[in-house]
């Protein structure tokens, strides 16, 4: 079969399309940052995870060190079991704190890791015991109102 210029154009088209897809994956998408390679898995139990979603970032000191892999409800302890995948390059001490924060006032929620002082580091499959729940705005407001009400009640009594 002889080669024609048409074949050349089709070849160029296919290569350009594949290159565009590749460019999208690498330059636009998060393929480079999400497949950080080796990760280890740790779990953490939260009483309330707020709006945390799978694939939310795990940050420490503001740097993304991993991703939320899976969130499940434990019907024995009535807590949410969050599985985190953390990059193998970043070992964390055993007594690391896992907190759920919100990026900005109304932004997405992420897991913040605050390193403790333990000599030993977290291994694959370990559980983070120190956790802090997501801040639920309604709870805070109701608590604030309740406190205000009891304050004014106290001051009336004092009179």
């Amino acid at each position, binding site marked *: 079969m002889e080669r024609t210029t048409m074949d050349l154009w089709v070849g160029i*088209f296919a290569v350009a399309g594949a290159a565009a897809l590749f460019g999208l994956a690498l*330059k*636009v998408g*998060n393929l480079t940052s999400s497949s950080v390679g080796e990760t280890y898995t740790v779990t953490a139990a939260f009483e309330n995870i707020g709006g945390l979603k799978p694939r939310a970032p795990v940050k420490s000191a503001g740097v993304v060190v991993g991703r939320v892999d899976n969130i499940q409800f434990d019907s024995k302890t009535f807590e949410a079991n969050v599985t985190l995948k953390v990059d193998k390059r970043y070992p964390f001490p055993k007594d690391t704190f896992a907190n759920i924060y919100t990026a900005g006032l109304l932004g997405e929620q992420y897991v913040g890791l605050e390193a403790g002082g333990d000599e030993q580091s977290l291994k694959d499959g370990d559980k983070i015991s120190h956790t802090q729940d997501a801040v639920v705005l309604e709870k805070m407001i109701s608590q604030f109102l309740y406190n205000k009400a009891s304050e004014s009640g106290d001051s009336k009594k004092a009179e």
Partner: protein
Amino acid sequence: MLKRLAEVLRGMGHRIIDRIWRLGSGARFFLYTLIYSGESFRRIHLTIREIYFTGVMSLLIILVSAFFVGMVLALQGYNTLQKYGSSEAIGVLVALSLVRELGPVVTALLFAGRAGTAITAEIGLMKTTEQLSAMEMMAVSPIARVVAPRFWAGVVSMPLLAALFSMVGVLGGYIVAVPVIGVDNGAFWSQMQANVDFQADIVNGVIKSVVFGVACTMIALFEGFDAPPTAEGVSRATTRTVVNSSLAVLGLDFILTSFMIVT
């Protein structure tokens, strides 16, 4: 009075039954195309020829429109985003809207207009000039020889065109956002990378474009194959190709999106 009513009802019923009939024969046509695909792959140069005519020849219109769509998105997005002091998010806006929706959908609409009409007109004319019957006389299946190569050419071309559309659109958005408006270059790309997910956004966009490719090419082929062998019939079939493909693309887009967003 009753007679008129009966006539109207009869007309409606006739039209509905006709549509269902066409849908059924369209499905049978699709099945035949798949069955005869193996035969057409043995003469792969036919498919490559069709990729040249449907894919490569559509490149120019796809790339130019992608560039302008990207630039307009960046301009419009900047206009609103800067009110909230987050003009860096313009990269996310441009990339997500292109990769998820506009890339596959606009490519499919342009493809239906640029390549779909050509396919319908070509096959319709082949039928009118009895080339298809001649092939059958020579024991060459017109579906294997004419239809299947065009079908696979469309299915292969569409994802490639959609990927090129998205990439060029992002570049268009970049050109407006960074050198013209003056958004920070690093923030533009890093926010984009932080928010565009490979699996959820890019792969789903490719899946969409493959589905649109099947739908658009199949509609164009069937309309051509089914066209009444007259000049008027071919022209009507060409119009129907554009209308039906566009409707199918938009409807399928809604269905696919609702599957993909709800996870």
